[in-house]
């Protein structure tokens, strides 16, 4: 009888102990699958801890290119006895549990409906490597070899990935190869292989790259000319700062003098971090910070200052699970309202919603132009899933003709030739955006006094009601100007001419939503979809919302915050906006979206039958 294989469609989960070197082995495995031309979605599921606690690494392998998380584990590599019970339970019926059989598996872990593949990982490692540390490290490579053989991965590709990884530590290559072979040979000698889920070389990744969103944001900032990066460590945003520093060291050192064309300042807290950014952009540099919910909470007073005194700021907000310290190593989209309306008084802020690393790069770069153009704070709203996990992404692009848009700034010459009085908050051309000057520009013209107190067109303090109104109403007009400058939504193939059903999503919900669109189509459910890329909502968003009768709003928080923004900003009738939510800290899946939508469509309306 011919065996039937499921090809290039599986979820593999590695259950490890953090701090044991498993992360790099797992990464090399995932990268090898990617090198075989098969789309992958790796996810680290890690604790807020440095050593000793359970950690998981999950890779979805999907030839069709669906990049969202998928529930149900086909193969679990369980090398952490602490989490065995949970791990065994998490395997899909008919799936595989790969474990270290150096010691026998306790019978409480035995399930009738899954397959067990024991490999004496520790024993093999002890027989072949001298020290405990090496044994632990190479145990990881042993299971990679075994797993690769079981799913028929290309061993040569894995070897080339290993060789690249240790390019600078050539001595480590032979023992890594040896460990790989130990795993391969053990499977070949003891098991029937490949198993019924396997991979096959394909050509489905095109020119894609594998990169995490935080690195892409950092590169976007470097390309956009950010010279000051002020930050305070917090998961999941820390790696934005780290990547900025790493790449700035490579790309921003003056070749002749060896001096740095950037200042990387680890601040004493988030208040100071954003204060430094405000000071730097006030001084005429491009500057940014990166943080997460607790940091944004601390920055609120300064955020109001940047709004009211009209000082550009770029803030990369990598969301994690809240409230409070919440789930610091899990992902959510739960800081939408607190970002959109951060600080006291009437304030609103421009938000950009990247959905993959290429957009993290582009939108971060764009945020600098928008911040300078609109003279206000721009937040790039990312999240832990996008920021810290590697994603299959289109390559990052830069057009060498592209010039930085520094917005309305008077130069020394312009000031010199100016006959009228300079008014820092004077709207001279009707777009509600005034001109600014940098300190030090001109000896007698263009100086002004920046303040967070109410001020007139000439930056003079005033508590007169009419002066205050002129100013805040102009800021509202500027908000309207912003609507014409932020990126419009992406509208997907319209397949519902009657415009009865709509689907709205943004950011990391996109992967699952795109897959859900296909699943719904398979069920003959016609639905039009829109991916929102920015706040304030542009005309196109408004049109889509007003044209559709029933709109599913997909997001990853409990209170449907995005839906609240739609209701609040567009005065949409709440009853037509239906919540589709996932907020347990794990990225939303297509199945979740589909089943919630179908559940809410019951009973099936006549026109869909």
């Amino acid at each position, binding site marked *: 009888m011919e065996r039937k294989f499921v090809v290039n469609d599986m979820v593999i989960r590695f259950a490890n102990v953090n701090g044991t070197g498993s992360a790099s082995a797992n990464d090399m495995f995932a990268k090898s699958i990617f090198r075989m031309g098969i789309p992958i979605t790796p996810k680290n599921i890690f604790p807020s801890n440095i050593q000793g606690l359970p950690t998981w690494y999950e890779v979805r392998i999907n030839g069709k290119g669906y990049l969202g998380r998928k529930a149900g584990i086909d193969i679990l590599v369980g090398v952490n006895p602490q989490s065995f019970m949970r791990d065994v339970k998490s395997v899909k019926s008919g799936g595989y549990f790969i474990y270290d059989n150096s010691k026998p598996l306790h019978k409480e872990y035995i399930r009738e409906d899954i397959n067990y593949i024991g490999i004496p990982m520790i024993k093999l490692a002890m027989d072949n490597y001298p020290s405990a540390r090496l044994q632990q490290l190479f145990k990881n490579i042993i299971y990679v070899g075994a797993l690769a053989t079981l799913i028929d991965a290309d061993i040569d590709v894995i070897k080339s990935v290993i060789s690249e990884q240790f390019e600078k530590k050539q001595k480590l290559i032979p023992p890594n190869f040896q460990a790989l072979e130990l795993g391969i040979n053990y499977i070949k000698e003891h098991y029937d292989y490949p198993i019924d889920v396997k991979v096959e070389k394909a050509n489905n990744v095109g020119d894609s790259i594998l990169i995490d969103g935080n690195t892409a944001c950092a590169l976007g900032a470097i390309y956009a000319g950010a010279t000051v990066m002020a930050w305070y460590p917090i998961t999941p945003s820390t790696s934005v700062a780290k990547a900025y520093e790493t790449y700035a060291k490579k790309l921003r050192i003056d070749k002749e003098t060896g001096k740095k064309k950037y200042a990387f300042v680890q601040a004493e807290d988030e208040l100071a971090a954003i204060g430094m950014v405000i*000071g730097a952009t006030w001084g005429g540099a491009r500057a940014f910070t990166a943080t997460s919910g607790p940091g944004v909470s601390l920055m609120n007073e300064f955020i109001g200052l940047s709004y009211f005194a009209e000082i550009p700021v770029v803030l990369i907000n990598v969301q994690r699970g809240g409230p409070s310290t919440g789930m610091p190593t899990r992902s959510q989209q739960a800081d939408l309202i607190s970002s959109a309306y951060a600080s006291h008084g009437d304030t609103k802020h421009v938000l950009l919603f990247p959905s993959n690393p290429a957009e993290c790069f582009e939108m971060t770069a764009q945020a600098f132009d928008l911040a300078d153009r609109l003279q206000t704070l721009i937040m790039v709203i990312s999240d832990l899933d996008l920021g810290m996990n590697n994603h299959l992404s289109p390559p990052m692009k830069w057009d060498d003709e592209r010039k930085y848009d520094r917005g309305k700034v008077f130069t020394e010459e312009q000031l010199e030739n100016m006959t009228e009085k300079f008014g820092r908050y004077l709207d001279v051309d009707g777009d509600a955006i005034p001109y600014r000057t940098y300190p030090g520009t001109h000896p007698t013209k263009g100086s002004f006094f920046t303040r967070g107190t109410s001020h007139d067109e000439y930056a003079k303090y005033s508590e007169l009601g009419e002066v205050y109104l002129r100013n805040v109403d102009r800021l509202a007009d500027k908000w309207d100007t912003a609507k014409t400058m932020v990126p419009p939504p992406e509208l997907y193939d319209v397949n519902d001419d009657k415009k009865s059903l709509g689907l709205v999503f943004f950011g990391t919900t996109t992967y699952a939503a795109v897959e859900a669109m296909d699943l719904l189509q398979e069920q003959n459910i016609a639905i039009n979809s829109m991916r929102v890329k920015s706040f304030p909502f542009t005309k196109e968003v408004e049109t889509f919302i007003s044209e559709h009768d029933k709109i599913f709003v997909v997001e990853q928080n409990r209170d449907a915050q995005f839906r609240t923004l739609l209701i609040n900003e567009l005065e949409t009738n709440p009853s037509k906006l239906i919540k589709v939510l996932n907020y347990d800290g794990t990225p939303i899946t297509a199945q979740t979206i589909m089943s919630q939508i179908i559940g809410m469509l019951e009973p099936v309306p006549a026109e869909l039958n």
Partner: protein
Amino acid sequence: MSYLKPLFHHPSLKENKVGYVKADYEGVISTLCAGCGHDSISGAIVQACYEVSLEPHRLAKLSGIGCSSKTPTYFLSNSHGFNSVHGRMPSITTGANMANKHLIYLGVSGDGDTASIGMGQFVHAIRRNLNMVYIVMNNGCYGLTKGQDSATADFGSISKTGESNPYNGIDLAGLALELGASFVGRSFSGDKSQLVPMIKAAMSHPGFALLDVISPCVTFNNNKESTKSYSHVRAHIESTSEFDFVPEEKAIEVDYAAGDSAEVELFDGSKILLSKLAPDWNPTDKFTAVNRLHEAKSNGQILTGLLYINPESKDLHSMLNTSDKAFNAMDETDLCPGSMELEKINQGLR
């Protein structure tokens, strides 16, 4: 409400070397209480900038929130100013300084703004040796919120409310010394002859220069039982030395008797001359400064003058090794690595 002072300049007012008269360094008319110490400090700032012939746009003035932090509107109208939020002036100044290392940054704060809400940022600006002049207009109370004791109010000092302060006061100069500040001075708003040269020297110093200036609040903390009142300060003031600042190009002709004078050369070639030095005290030796401070305190004296200067000070830009061209003058040609480099990065991620 503030209003502009008449621009009319008395013809006899002398232009300084860069062609400005003293009025060019003034600001709008103060709205502080008549007699407030802060106004005298504003006057000293104007005097110092005029005398060193600073072009007004070469300086940026920044502050937090409080009566003291309002003062930057009352001096240097031709300089960019930034009245930020309560206690956070140091971070704004840090950023501004990163953007353009070629300006002088003058920060003004109050004792509430610095010693309570802003303590964290104050301490870290010192730690980074940020190149700035940091003036604390120290009145021992929160003037703007109507006179509550501040963290610099001395133990046992009695404010207008009649309550004796039960807490130990924070000595900002002592703290700055402890933290390694590279220039520490203390003065009194009523002593212009000391304050003006001290501001000049602080502006020449390449690093963090703290000037803790006692500045009585006439409205809430000027009763004679308050240790920050005019009468108390005048009665207990004691100075480390007499103090003069000599800009780089002036030859030094003053002669002091050996043993009681000292001369400190600053980074830009200017000199600080100290005469009638207190015994056992050396302005470049932190330990003697710390000892003198403690001694004065236990004798109930208020020690003023230059307390410490590190002539080898290296500021944050030197520590970070930033380029000489100011960041705010850089554009895509200086900063953007270009598409070829990006393609290389992409390639490395495949």
